[in-house]
């Protein structure tokens, strides 16, 4: 599943959601006739309630501060590293995960006939003979570097129906997920890119969704291994941020050029849902020919229509907050 497909799905779902858009917004006071009175009936002064509000504000400040501090180092969920009771820890290379005690673990490489509720592990999977696509393993033999979902998809060729390939962040580890599903069950094939490890988890029962989530949540760096290297956020987050980084410092002549328009189209292909509509607005404006190379003032954002200025501001904000790249200068 390419990012274009992902963007298409997002657009389709947003269109469907608009079918349910309300004609108007009923005033809050009409929904809750007692609500305005509620604010006047707070009763006698109460230090307790005042302090609750103050404490809530303080908690908000602390949370925002913590978010700002942690965002630059790791956007993933906290990796506890603990092994739930009745589960066992498995270490492969410098990656650890945990599965229920009764789950068989297969560490010798072969083209397994996979059974449900098993875990299959392989180090340096690209050095092994590839299996047929029906076997279910992620065939990484031809995958070029750097490994990204699209290159994996191209290398795998035409995976069996139901396969999806996406880039995931597993508690700080970059991983390519090849998710497969057939009549007998479903499997998560995680190729942990930087550790060169393949982990395949198999499930047979649709009710195992929560179990799958619990197991996936345990995948992370092994305790004895070095913590994952925190690279520049533009290279670790996703291809979109990498493209933003590449276009952050460009000459004036670039604005409105054919190269600029092509770059926006490329960004659109890998953009996250939050910025697709803004990129589409920018793309339409650039394609309209409104920017005239002979008139430098037409390249100034302040001279663009408000809608385009707004989209540009949103993109800058996203680039700053998510990619850690300031494009406003």
């Amino acid at each position, binding site marked *: 599943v390419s990012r274009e497909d992902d963007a298409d799905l997002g657009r*389709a779902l947003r269109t469907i959601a608009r079918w349910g*858009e309300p004609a108007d*917004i009923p005033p809050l006071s009409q929904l809750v006739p007692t609500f305005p009175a509620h*604010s006047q009936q707070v009763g006698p002064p109460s230090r307790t309630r005042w302090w609750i509000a103050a404490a809530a504000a303080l908690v*908000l400040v602390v949370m925002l501060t913590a978010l700002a501090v942690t965002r630059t180092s790791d956007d993933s969920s906290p990796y506890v590293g603990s092994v739930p009771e009745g589960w066992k820890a498995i270490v492969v290379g410098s990656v650890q995960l945990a599965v229920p005690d009764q789950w068989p673990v297969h560490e010798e490489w072969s083209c397994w006939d996979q059974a449900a509720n098993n875990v299959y592990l392989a180090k340096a999977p690209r050095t092994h003979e590839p299996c047929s696509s029906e076997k279910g393993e992620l065939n990484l033999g031809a995958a070029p570097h750097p490994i990204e979902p699209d290159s994996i998809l191209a290398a795998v060729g035409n995976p069996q129906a139901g396969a999806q390939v996406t880039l995931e962040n597993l508690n700080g580890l970059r991983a390519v997920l090849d998710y497969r599903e057939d009549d007998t069950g479903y499997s998560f094939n995680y190729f942990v890119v930087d550790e060169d490890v393949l982990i395949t988890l198999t499930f047979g029962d649709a009710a195992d969704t929560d179990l799958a*989530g*619990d197991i996936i949540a345990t995948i992370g760096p092994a305790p004895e291994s070095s913590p994952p290297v925190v690279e520049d956020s533009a290279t670790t987050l996703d291809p979109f941020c990498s493209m933003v980084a590449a276009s952050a410092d460009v000459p004036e002549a670039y604005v409105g050029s054919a190269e600029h328009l092509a770059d926006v189209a490329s960004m659109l292909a890998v953009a996250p849902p939050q910025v697709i509509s803004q990129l589409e607005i920018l793309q339409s404006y650039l394609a309209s020919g409104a920017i005239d190379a002979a008139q430098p003032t037409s390249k100034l954002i302040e001279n663009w229509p408000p809608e385009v200025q707004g989209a540009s501001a949103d993109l800058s904000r996203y680039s700053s907050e998510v990619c850690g790249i300031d494009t406003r200068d």
Partner: protein
Amino acid sequence: MRDVGGSETDVVTGWVEGFEAIYRASYRSMVQLAYLMLGSSSEAEEVVQEAALNAGRRISNNPHAYLRRSVVNGSIAVLRRRAVTEKHQPDPPPPEQPSYLVELRDCLLGLPERQRAAIALRYLEGLTDSEIAQTLDCREGSVRSLISRGLSTLRNEVIL
């Protein structure tokens, strides 16, 4: 200097006014979110109004997130009520819509409720795994699992 009572009244009044602004700014998107989960605009509006009623009565650090969570939980409650009452028919689609969108909507409405919620939150609200996990009160790994399984069903049943 104002006494504590004045401060309290200010806090509550400020909260009410602030929440009203959040409510007005969020109403349409929240109805759309509920509609994706329910397939009925009238039920979606009822869920959002009920959620706004509840969210407006309590001070929270992040009222928008609280409202969104209330909308998702309210929608799931409606789905569970439906499961024990009668077969629900979604709203007819607007005229002249492409058939694949109608198929996609119907397939989405056939997903388990948490898969439906996770996909709506990802693709409509643009939330991260972490934010979806907080909204659905589950782990991030579960979010990935819910979305993977939901998308697989959509892609197998609807040609996108």
